[in-house]
């Protein structure tokens, strides 16, 4: 995917990212700001502007190619079969329309319910996502709801048509941890009960560890490591993944161990066609890293690295 802006060199935001999600599966896209994880989700949903952006490749949903789908067909699919929850519910909800109307709108448009049925269904939805007193909340405007409740209302909207694919883009980043726990629990139940496929985009390794079946670690627009969560956290192979894990303090570890930060910042990068984008920050850098482009190799545990970590910095887990 290439972003173009007149008078400036093209920006390659996402490059050769590929993954698949099965029904009832949760796939995680992890990475720091600017790594292209959100743009990937927008491209999948066809939500990027048509002008100035070139999207190449293929997005196949249950056999349908989404990228070449005409806009009206895509619109029918979106909301009904595909749904997305963004990080900031305040910008996703319309501030001048009551929450109820925003939920019923989806039901009327996609499930063909009449106004009365839709209101009843909307009330049920809000109750299911854990909003107390739903009939009152339906009449209220987004600003009258707390952050956690807004996010839950948004999830209710996304769930209104029982989508088969849900993309959650940093769904809990703006929320407090106790609310985060509630929302994650809700998403988990949803996946387990309805067999929805979930793509979870986050920067929080802890959230990934508790939620995802498969994890894709992205860096500078490409997937650098891909593994099941147990493999990824148990034995990370890419120096970036290992670095991320070593740089976050853990609550269940004894205190007093010094953190091992990754040197530099995500800005220190080289273009992928001249080598590995992570090379300038990489402790495992070898000569090849700045002269050739590493490929994503290996099926089950995919890796894009010339000199991976031998045995990852697996830390002893102290049983409690």
């Amino acid at each position, binding site marked *: 995917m290439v972003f173009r802006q007149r008078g400036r060199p093209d920006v390659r935001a996402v490059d050769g990212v590929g993954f698949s999600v099965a029904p009832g599966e*949760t796939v995680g896209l992890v990475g*720091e700001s600017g790594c292209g994880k959100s743009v990937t989700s927008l491209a999948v949903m066809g939500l990027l502007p048509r002008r100035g952006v070139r999207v190449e490749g293929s997005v196949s949903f249950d056999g349908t190619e989404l990228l070449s789908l005409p806009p009206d067909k895509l619109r029918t699919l979106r909301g009904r079969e595909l749904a997305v929850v963004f990080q900031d519910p305040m910008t996703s909800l319309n501030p001048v329309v009551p929450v109820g109307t925003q939920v019923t709108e989806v039901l009327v448009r996609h499930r063909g319910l009449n106004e009365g049925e839709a209101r009843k269904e909307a009330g049920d939805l809000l109750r299911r996502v*854990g909003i107390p007193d739903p009939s009152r909340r339906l009449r209220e405007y987004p600003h009258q709801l*707390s*952050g*956690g*409740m807004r996010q839950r209302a948004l999830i209710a909207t996304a769930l209104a048509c029982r989508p088969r694919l849900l993309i959650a883009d940093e769904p809990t980043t703006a929320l*407090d*941890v*106790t*609310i*985060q*726990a*509630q929302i*994650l*629990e809700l998403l*988990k*139940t949803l*996946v*387990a009960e309805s067999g929805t496929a979930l793509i979870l985009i986050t*920067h*929080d*390794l*802890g959230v*990934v*560890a*508790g*939620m995802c*079946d498969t994890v894709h670690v992205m860096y500078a627009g490409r997937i650098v490591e891909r593994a099941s969560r*147990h493999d990824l*956290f*148990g034995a990370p192979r890419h120096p970036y993944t290992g*670095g*991320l*894990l070593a*740089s*976050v*303090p*853990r*609550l*269940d570890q*004894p*205190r*007093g*161990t*010094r*953190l*091992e*930060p*990754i*040197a*530099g*910042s*995500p*800005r*220190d990068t080289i273009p992928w066609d001249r080598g590995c984008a992570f090379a*300038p*920050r990489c402790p495992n850098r070898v000569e090849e890293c700045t002269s050739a482009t590493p490929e994503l190799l290996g099926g089950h545990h995919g890796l894009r690295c010339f000199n991976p970590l031998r045995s990852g910095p697996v830390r002893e*887990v102290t049983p*409690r």
Partner: protein
Amino acid sequence: MTSNGTAEPGEPAPPDGAAGSAGPAPSNGAAVPGEPLLSVRGLKVHFPIRKGTLLQRVVGHVRAVDGVDLEVRRGMTYGLVGESGCGKSTLGKAVLRLVEPTAGTVVFDGVNLALQGPEPMRRLRRNMQMVFQDPLASLDPRQSVESALTEPLRAHGFPGDRSKRVRELLDIVGLPAGAAGRYPHEFSGGQRQRVGIARAIALNPDLIIADEPVSALDVSIQAQIVNLLEDLQEQLGLTYVVVAHDLAVVRHVSDVIGVMYLGALVEEAPSDELYAEPLHPYTIALMSAIPIPDPEVEERRRRILLTGDLPSPVDVPPGCRFHTRCPFRQPTRCAEESPDLREMRPGRKVACHWAEEIATGTIRAAASAQDPTATEVGAPAVQ
């Protein structure tokens, strides 16, 4: 402009001295020469809510900080945690009198700050500085780093060569000397936070209040700043109050942690003990809600889910302020009588009527929140 070199500050120093590695017997007083540097008693910050255009009647108060006692010993780090809106940032600002406290006393190094007039207060401020969350917002975009660092030196009449001091400060926080002539937007987030820290330590303060010092930064950068703060404490003998919502970070840097809920401290404990054995129901729930980046651990954990949202600080619930969401709530007493922050055992303070019973397991969490089978949320429900 690679900042590769900036990640390794001078010599590797052990994390915050002996205090952190106190080991099996965390004896606070023994490890560090710890006379209290800061002592806060009954601190309250209430913001009036006014209504009407002309008369501006006061119709209520936001009780942002509602009676907090705490003591920070010299050379130690006190961590304040809590969710958004619990008053932790307001408390930090009230200590420095950046917002005026409504009631209570703040004694800093033997001086009662509330009694100081504007000029003595201004002079005292050189000893207590603040590091803010978002350095892009707290640094003037049109002011070069040199100018930003010289300003406190000039304001407080720093004797000696100011530009030498600026170079020295840049070196201490791990920025190249060439950074002096540059502007905030030219730096990455981590480097900007280094500038913010350099400005805070410019006048050799005793106390630094750091309000969410790493939460605006990328994960890989957070550790750099955390390590820098620890090194500076070692080198300069600083005392920190770290205000943050990320408990893992706070626990990593702090010696003592205070947990705030709705304007009050509900628990205070040495940071090693807080995770091992949280005593207050809110702390228990908070700890169990924090995701740990390890699937093995996540699957075994028991999660206690709180229901509902944080009540408004305008309408603090009567009795125990946590009773509306507490999974361990007991009839009548919790709703009627407000528990004091009491010392349950040496070093462990908790504001709960039933802390002993909860600790021994006599009182269990309500079935909705905790059920031997239902709480195994880490279990692979998703497979």
